[in-house]
C-alpha cells in the first residue's frame, strides 16, 4: 500500500513538473475565468515590419463568416501595457499590420489576440460555445523593410487571458528547471536574435549555454520581467565551427522566436 502511494506521488510529481499550465485552472471552463486564451506573440519594428494573421475561431469552427471584434493588447519590454487595437471583421482571417501607433511607439514587445462576439451571436451558438473555449495561436510574419514577402512563425505558448476587470492573467506556470535545446546550429559569422516572452507574473531567469564538440560554456544570464518580451542579440560569437545553443529556465517548455541573420538574408522560426 505504501509503495502504491509512493508511486502515485512520484507520478504526480513528474506530471506536475511537466505541466506548462496551471493544473487546477486549466480544468476550469474559461467562462469562469475570462473569455478566451491567447498565445503570447512577439512584434519587432526595429528594421523589421511585423504582421499578424488573426483567426476568427467561431467562423472557422462553423464554416461560415461571422462578425467578431478582434482585440489586440500590446505589452512593452518591461511588461507594461502600451497599446490596444480593436477592429471588426467577419472574415475567417484578419491581417493586422502592426505599427508604432498601436504599440505606443514601442519597437520590440509582445501582444495578445482575443475576440468578442455580439450577444445575439453568442445566444445563437450557445449550445456549441458551452462545450468549447477558444485558443488563439495565429501566425506572426516578419520582413525586413523593402523585402518582398513575410516569413512566418505560428503562435506557440502563452495561456494568457483578461479577467472581468481587464487585468492580464496567465494559465502558464513555472516549474523545476528545464533545459531546452533547439535542433539547429549556431554558425560562425551569423548574428542571432532570440526573442523571449514571459507569460507569467513572476521574473524569469534564462541561462544561455553554448555547446561545441569539446565543452559546454555558460554564454550569459538574462532576466525577464513579468509579462515582458525581450530581444537578446548575439553578434559574432567568435566561434570557428558550428555550435549548439541551449537555455535553462523554469518553464517546462522554454521556446522562443529565433532570428538568424547572415547580413544578406534572415531566417525566423520558433525554437
Amino acid at each position, binding site marked *: 500500500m505504501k509503495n502504491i502511494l509512493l508511486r502515485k506521488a512520484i507520478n504526480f510529481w513528474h506530471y506536475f513538473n511537466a*505541466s506548462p499550465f496551471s493544473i487546477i485552472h486549466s480544468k476550469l*471552463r474559461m467562462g469562469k475565468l475570462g473569455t478566451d486564451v491567447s498565445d503570447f506573440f512577439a512584434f519587432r519594428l526595429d528594421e523589421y515590419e511585423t504582421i499578424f494573421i488573426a483567426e476568427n475561431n467561431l467562423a472557422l469552427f462553423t*464554416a461560415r463568416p461571422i462578425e467578431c471584434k478582434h482585440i489586440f493588447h500590446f505589452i512593452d519590454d518591461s511588461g507594461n501595457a502600451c497599446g490596444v487595437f480593436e477592429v471588426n471583421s467577419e472574415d475567417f482571417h484578419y491581417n493586422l499590420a502592426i505599427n508604432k501607433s498601436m504599440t505606443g511607439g514601442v519597437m520590440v514587445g509582445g501582444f495578445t489576440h482575443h475576440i468578442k462576439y455580439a450577444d445575439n451571436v453568442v445566444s445563437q451558438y450557445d449550445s456549441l460555445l458551452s462545450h468549447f473555449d*477558444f485558443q488563439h495561436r495565429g*501566425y506572426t510574419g516578419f520582413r525586413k523593410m523593402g523585402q*518582398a514577402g513575410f516569413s512566418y512563425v505560428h503562435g506557440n505558448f502563452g495561456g494568457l487571458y483578461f479577467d472581468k476587470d481587464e487585468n492580464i492573467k496567465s494559465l502558464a506556470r513555472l516549474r523545476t528547471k528545464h533545459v531546452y535545446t*533547439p535542433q539547429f546550429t549556431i554558425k560562425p559569422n551569423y548574428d542571432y536574435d532570440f526573442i523571449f516572452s514571459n507569460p507569467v507574473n513572476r521574473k524569469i531567469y534564462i541561462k544561455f549555454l553554448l555547446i561545441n564538440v569539446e565543452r559546454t560554456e555558460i554564454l550569459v544570464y538574462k532576466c525577464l520581467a513579468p509579462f515582458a518580451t525581450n530581444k537578446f542579440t548575439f553578434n559574432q560569437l567568435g566561434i570557428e565551427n558550428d555550435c549548439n545553443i541551449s537555455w535553462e529556465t523554469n518553464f517546462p*517548455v522554454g521556446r522562443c522566436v529565433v532570428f538568424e541573420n547572415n547580413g544578406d*538574408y534572415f531566417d525566423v522560426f*520558433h525554437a
Partner: protein
Amino acid sequence: MSEYFFLVNVGDGIVSSVCLSKFIPNRLSKSPIGIKYKVAIYIQNLDSTIWKKIDEVEFNNSNNITLKSSSYDLEVGQLAVVVPCNIEAVLDDSVNILPEPLSRKVDHSPVNERATISFKKGNVYSSFQGEFPYQMSKIKGAFLTFDPLILGNSKDIKTKIVFINIHSKILTVKDYFELFVADIKTKETILSKGYMHNSACIIDISSSEDSGYVFYSKETLGIPIFISYDEKGGYLSVEHTHPPAEYFWNNKIEGQRLLKQNWLSQL
C-alpha cells in the same frame, strides 16, 4: 511519442534538409544532456509498397547531422523518411513496415522531438522546427487546413503547398488519393491533385486577393507545408499551419472533429 522526419524533392531547384543534434530537445536540468542514436533513411518508389534503406548516418565526432534532399536521387514528390534508430540496431535493406522511430525523451519534459526542417533556393533559405508524428503515420483520417500564410502575397511571389503523407504500416496496395483546393467562401472546388501513399502532394498556387482557400483530403492525414518564394532569389519563406485542434483550449479532439465535419459536409 516519437517522430519521423523527411526530405522531399519539391522541384524548382528547392533543396530540403533536416538537421538533428545528439542533444535532448527538452529535458530536466539534472537529466542526461544527450543520447546515442543514428538515423536511417528510407525511400519508397512511387509504384512500390516496399521501403528501401538508402543510407545510415551516425554522429561520429560531430554533435549534429545534416541531411539534404539533393544527396539522394529523389523524384519530384518523392519522400526520403529519416528514422532515428538505436545506435546498435541492425536494419534490413528492404522492409514493408517502416521502423518505429526511437524516442529521444529521457524524462517527462513535454515537447515534440523536433528537427530543423529547411528549404533552400539559391542562397535564400527558411526553416521550422518540425516532425511527422509516428502516431499519425499509423492512423487514417481526413485533412483540412486553410491558407492564411499566402493571403495577400504579391503576384511576384510563388507558393507551393507541400502535403506530406507518411504511412508506416504494411501496405498491400498503393492507393491513389486526391488533395482538393476550394474557395473558402463559396466552398467550390478550384483544383485538385492526386497523390499516393508515402509521397508529397505538391500544388503550385497563387494568392487570392478577395477570398482565400481551404485545402482538404477526405482520405488521409498529413502535414501541410507552405513554401513561398520569388524567382529572383531574394525571398523564401516556409511554415506549416497548425492543425484545427489548436483553435480550442479544451476539448481539442472533439472540437477538431466537429470543425472538420462542418467544412467537409459542405465541400
